């Protein structure tokens, strides 16, 4: 059962007040705040006087909650897989043809040709030539997949002895770094922690403004400079200020970059190098956001980012779509990096812990 999806996010939050819809609020705010300052001016800390209670975030989506959207998404992709498997195996001997089709189904879920071939071979060893039902096959698959994925399902634990616990978010363009920061900030704030944000994407137009909006939504101070400023310098200031303020967590955003751009990867190393000057242990966590729609290129992404900035955790984003992120199975096996969370929508609550059983059983269509 998908019981892991059923953890309702903060059901005790106060009823939404009739706040204006978030979008106009954004545009409004941005139009006002777009200060023209010298590039190297002192970083601005949005002095959002950290409220004791998080301001009413966005209204919980009513018609289609993240939950139902997730279920929709899951059923879309899993039904295809399920139908396929059922189609092959209902009262059928497991022969070469059936195995080949099974392999293809796994490939279709982005598990990659190698992993798919291995899982199929495992099935052939134990069941070949026997009468097998679709249920048995799904069960076998789910168990095998779970064995692979289980060890990497680890929640992100904030070390209270670090003040602050510094988290750096890195990843390819458009994978959801800024949005994930917003969601993580909400989560840590709910746990009663003081959270600071650093708008380290000083490259993309309006990325700073985007993070500031998240800062407002979650009631977290945002350290920022103007677009075009030096990201490493900004990170340094953020660490310094968050440390002085005694924050529990500091989330540092970075500009998206393709892993094959050596210059940009070097820039990322510089950020790490610079914050280590203030705190040799920092960053305590370096998270890579991985888009669930990404195919086999995910291997290259992780390989390079791991090599360059020693990422030690993953967040799998956009899992509410039709893509199931099957590539994660191969990644878990190869790199053994913990998967801390999954993104299932665009709202502040749309972040869930990664849970192996739910993920894999949903993947093969067992509910």
């Amino acid at each position, binding site marked *: 059962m998908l019981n892991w999806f059923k953890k309702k996010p903060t059901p005790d939050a106060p009823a939404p007040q009739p706040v204006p819809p978030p979008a106009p609020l954004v*545009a409004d705010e941005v139009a006002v705040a777009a200060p023209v300052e010298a590039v190297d001016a002192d970083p601005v800390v949005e002095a959002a006087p950290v409220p004791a209670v998080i301001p009413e975030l966005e209204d919980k989506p009513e018609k289609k909650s993240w939950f139902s959207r997730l279920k929709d998404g899951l059923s879309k992709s899993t039904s295809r897989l399920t139908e396929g498997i059922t189609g092959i195996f209902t009262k059928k001997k497991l022969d070469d043809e059936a195995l080949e089709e099974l392999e293809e189904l796994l490939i279709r879920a982005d598990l990659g040709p190698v992993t798919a071939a291995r899982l199929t071979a495992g099935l052939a060893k134990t069941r070949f030539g026997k009468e097998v039902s679709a249920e048995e096959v799904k069960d076998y698959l789910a168990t095998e997949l779970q064995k692979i994925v289980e060890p990497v399902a680890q929640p992100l634990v904030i070390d209270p002895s670090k003040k602050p616990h510094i988290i750096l978010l890195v990843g390819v363009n458009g994978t959801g770094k800024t949005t994930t920061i917003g969601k993580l900030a909400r989560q840590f704030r709910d746990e009663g922690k003081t959270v600071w944000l650093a708008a380290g994407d000083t490259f993309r137009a309006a990325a700073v403004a985007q993070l500031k909006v998240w800062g407002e939504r979650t009631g977290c101070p945002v350290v920022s400079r103007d677009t075009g400023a030096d990201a490493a310098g900004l990170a340094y200031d953020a660490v310094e200020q968050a440390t002085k303020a005694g924050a529990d967590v500091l989330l540092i955003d970075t500009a998206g970059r393709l892993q094959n751009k050596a210059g940009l990867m070097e820039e990322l190393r510089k950020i790490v190098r610079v914050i280590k000057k203030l705190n040799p242990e920092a960053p305590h966590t370096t998270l890579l956001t991985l888009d669930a729609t990404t195919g086999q290129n995910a291997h290259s992404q992780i390989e390079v980012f791991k090599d360059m900035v020693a990422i030690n955790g993953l967040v799998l984003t956009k899992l509410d779509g039709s893509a199931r992120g099957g590539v994660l199975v191969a990644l878990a096996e190869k790199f053994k990096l913990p998967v801390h969370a999954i993104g299932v929508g665009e709202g502040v609550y749309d972040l869930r812990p990664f849970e192996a059983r739910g993920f894999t059983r949903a993947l093969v269509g067992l509910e």
Partner: protein
Amino acid sequence: MFDGLTGRLGDIFDRLRKRGALSEDDVNAALREVRIALLEADVALPAVKAFVTGVKEKAVGTEVLRGINPGQMVIKIVHDHLVELLGSQVEDLNLEAVPPVPILMLGLQGSGKTTTSAKIAVRLKNRDKKKVLLASLDTRRPAAQEQLRILGQQTGVASLPIIAGQQPVEIARRAMEVGRLEGFDVVILDTAGRLAIDEELMAEVVAIRDATKPVESLLVVDAMTGQDAVTVATNFNEKVGITGIVMTRIDGDARGGAALSMRHVTGKPIKLMGMGEKTDALEPFHPDRIAGRILGMGDVVSLVEKAAESIDKEEAEKLAKKLEKGGFDLEDMLSQMRQIRKLGGMGGMMNLLPGMGKIKEQLKNANIDEKILDRQEAIILSMTKKERKKPDILNASRRRRIAMGAGVTVADVNRLIKQYQDMSEMMKKMKKMGQKGLLRQGLGALMPKGLR
């Protein structure tokens, strides 16, 4: 991790040296590898199957051309078929309509719609001299409208003033109205990213379509997309109707199999590709480049073009003249090395060259230092002018001095001098052969023995 099709097929056909027509067995063996290569390149399974069937029909019974091996023959057939499927001619944006011509941008979250919108605007403005209006209908992602406004400002393209609280369909109507009243040629409507399975948001984009009647509805897709490309392309095409595809992040190292998947399920042309973060980094789609990349065959065309761009013409001419006279000295070698560096160093070149997959692996294993070019440059720079012009005078004590100056060992200096001698030998050969000879013998004749 992937050494591409060239390497895979090389292994199979190394054992197979017979001449004549390709037998069905040969083809089947090759196609198994083709299938895996395509899947590793993220081509969706239905597209892979159709492709493999098509290639088989063409390949069985084909005469293997003289001078190449069966593996290369299969690769050629596979490559040509792939280019054909990807779209053999370049299709540009269609602006044949009464202005303002609406262009609707569609896609998943984070596929690159906003950046692509700005790039298209810049292209239309600079190349086609069009008056373009950018309008962001993205009221969902924080600061998305602001992002497009700033991009417009940076590139000198007008953008629709932001009115807080306005809904996407209203914004679209207002954009078209402004477009009409202020005499814009093109209005680019940048929509919010949405999941293809999100009925509510898909309905919204259909409403936008109906309100604006776009002439182009472009689906923006990340080159890194996996098997899901089929679902995305099918849904957007069936629900909204697309007229073309834009592939983004082609400058990454993804193999871009999604291109073939989407062509396969929609039949719509891939019109443009995004090649970088700058607003001018947008190019027409080159099917042959993407074909080569999907198959892991290197991007020969790109290398040639890149070389043409970055190699200094004057410098090259100077070198050519010198070669004619037969004198190739260490100064020339130095300037050559600097040219290579401009192309992105050895690694950069290797990436672009076909058939280098294996060599690259070997280089990696042999732990060859990428900094070798730097070191060699340092060695030459530690020589006197006279030594560079007349390398013959380099005796043992001079070599020792140079090694000290460059911070390397004498053996390194010797190696460089040996390399210089080989090169100058090669240059002489080239001169003797003349251009005709070069064409007949092929470039292979010039390669040092080890690489041939």
